[in-house]
């Protein structure tokens, strides 16, 4: 028989026992829906978590911090060394000092932390602005945290766009020469959304120019080639006393955690699929029993054993493929539908919309492959039994 005839006959056999076939296909669809729905929620939440971790950060940056115990220094010499490494595209430094801050208009003073860095540096942090914008590196602008406003007991509107004066209190070790205690006056262009830590963030270059700082507290290294980031980190670690942190590590950890979560979720779905597979096996076995004489007569008419084998395999695969298509459609429909409803509610209540459901195309392809495999595996035993049926016994079967 040709494959076309076998598939056609398999399909006819299934449709001739419509209710049973539909129930079995429904069972498979429910199992596949469960797998798709649960695992896609896993993928969706993982994607959310990674987005939350990454935000605007780029995977071509990693952090360098001075280790504990005065072992290492991130001074100009080390910075020059790091810059000379092959894979290093750029180095963005941060200097951290205590500072005394004064708002000239009210002469209120506050002790804060001063972080001197750059726009690029800030873009690679979790910093969120409550109001205003990031400073420009060369225009005498700075940002202050919400906590500073609390210290100054002033509303954001009064401080934003007004001049602020601060005096960095440099540690001796941080300075190249004699400490300077000049006051610096910058314009506040943004309020950082942080109610806990009173700090200001200002461009580093004017400070370096003024104080000649040679020891920095942290740096963000931009690399040319992300795939070689591990080697670059190792080179820096080999300098001694410096620690590196990479957002990719966190993402790897997240991926690891979520792959466990997804496996557990898939496990629940697979239980449903396993039950559906038992249903399929039962349907095919009952069908085999009912059609014993039919198979006997097919063999007496000259049907080859392998064609009988193919027929049962095809029937198993047709059930699983149809159930799989239904399950994928249902799983995607339910998941994205639910996501849509949640977002509608979020919009109506003024909350941000989010996407907690995500079915990657590769995962769907994997499911399709597994469905076909499931059909073939479940169909295999009845197919084998069918080929072993003795036509003589089958003809005498009541």
């Amino acid at each position, binding site marked *: *028989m*040709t494959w*076309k*005839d076998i598939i*056609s*006959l398999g399909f*006819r*056999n299934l*449709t*001739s026992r419509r209710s049973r076939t539909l129930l079995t296909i429904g069972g498979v669809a429910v199992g596949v829906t469960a797998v798709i729905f649960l695992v896609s929620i896993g993928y969706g939440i993982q994607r959310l978590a990674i987005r939350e971790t990454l935000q605007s950060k780029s995977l071509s940056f990693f952090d360098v911090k001075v280790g504990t115990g005065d072992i290492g220094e991130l001074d100009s010499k080390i910075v020059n060394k790091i810059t000379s490494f092959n894979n290093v595209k750029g180095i963005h430094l941060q200097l951290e000092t205590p500072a005394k801050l004064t708002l000239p208009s009210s002469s209120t003073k506050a002790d804060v932390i001063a972080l001197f860095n750059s726009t690029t540096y800030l873009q690679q942090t979790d910093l969120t602005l409550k109001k205003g914008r990031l400073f420009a590196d060369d225009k005498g602008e700075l940002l202050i945290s919400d906590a500073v406003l609390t210290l100054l007991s002033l509303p954001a509107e009064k401080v934003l766009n007004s001049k602020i004066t601060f005096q960095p209190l440099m540690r001796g070790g941080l300075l190249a020469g004699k400490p300077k205690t000049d006051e610096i006056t910058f314009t506040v262009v943004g309020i950082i959304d942080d109610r806990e830590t009173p700090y200001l963030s200002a461009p580093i270059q004017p400070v370096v120019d003024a104080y000649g700082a040679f020891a920095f507290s942290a740096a963000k290294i931009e690399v040319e080639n992300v795939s070689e980031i591990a080697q670059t980190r190792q080179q820096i670690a080999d300098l001694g006393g410096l620690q590196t942190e990479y957002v990719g590590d966190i993402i790897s950890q997240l991926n690891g955690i979520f792959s466990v979560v997804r496996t557990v979720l898939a496990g629940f779905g697979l239980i449903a699929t396993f039950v559906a597979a038992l249903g399929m096996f039962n349907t095919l076995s009952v069908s085999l029993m009912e*059609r014993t*004489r*039919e198979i*006997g*007569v*097919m*063999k*007496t*008419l*000259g*049907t*080859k*054993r392998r*064609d009988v084998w193919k027929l049962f395999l095809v029937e198993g695969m047709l059930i699983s493929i149809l159930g799989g298509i239904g399950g994928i459609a249902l799983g995607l429909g339910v998941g994205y539908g639910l996501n849509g409803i949640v977002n509608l509610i979020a919009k109506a209540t003024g909350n941000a919309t989010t996407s907690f459901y995500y079915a990657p195309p590769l995962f769907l392809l994997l499911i399709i492959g597994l469905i076909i495999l499931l059909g073939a595996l479940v169909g295999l035993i009845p197919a084998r039994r069918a080929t072993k049926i*003795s*036509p*003589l016994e089958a*003809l005498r079967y009541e």
Partner: protein
Amino acid sequence: MAVEAIFKVDKISKRYPIGKREIEVLHNLELEITPGEFVILIGPSGCGKSTFMYLMFGLEPPSEGKIYFNNQDIFAMHEDQRTELRSHHIAMVHQQPIWIKALSVRENVAFPLLLHRIPKSDAVAKADRMLHVLNLEKLANQHPHELSVGEQQRCSLMRSLITEPEVIFADEPTGNLDTDSSIVVMELLKTINEQLGKTIIMVTHNMSHMPYGSKIVSMIDGKIVNVEVKRPPASPDNNKGISDILGSWADRNATATTKPASDSSATGKVQTQVKSKPSLAQEISKPQTKVTKP
């Protein structure tokens, strides 16, 4: 010149294990069947005649002895070769026709041709022509189980004939039929034998069928007790094809039964003559995709 046997049964025995012991259901059987013979295996129930026929059909090997088809030991063949034999050279009609339930009458009749990998459209067209010759075309789209037993049996004969086998085995083909339908089926078998020259090997315990046989093989307790040759084997009418022959048979049969056919009574139909009906030989011999025999 002696005609070569199409089937030769050489001292076969068949034993089945029953618990720890074996019982012998066939004992040292010898038989030769020449082409064109209408062999009737007759005997009481349980005498082993059906088992004997199934052995000759190649469904089960004998415990001892050999069975030759055209001088080839059928149990020395590979299973696939025996399947080819059943697909191309021999066919069987059962007491209760067994159908592929999902398929219509037409598709069931066409099914053996699909095993020859003939395109379905050609196979179905041939099945249609064969059903038409026997006035069964109106049943073509029905499911076999909607037909009366007599109609089923005639359709079953068409299914066995569609691949134009050399031998047709019939296992009590009239066992479930009333007298009228039995006569119709026996007359059809007779026509297939006498005019198409097909060898018929039929199992029955109905003595009224004896006149149809050219060779009567009587069996008792697994042994052949008598072989009576009543007439020489039929030789096919080479000037006529299957459809001519069966077509005129159907004409005769329809003329003789222009009353509500007993086997059609389930549907209350009256069998009527279709005057323009072509004969089966014409239909079968129409150019179409050739059935290749190995």
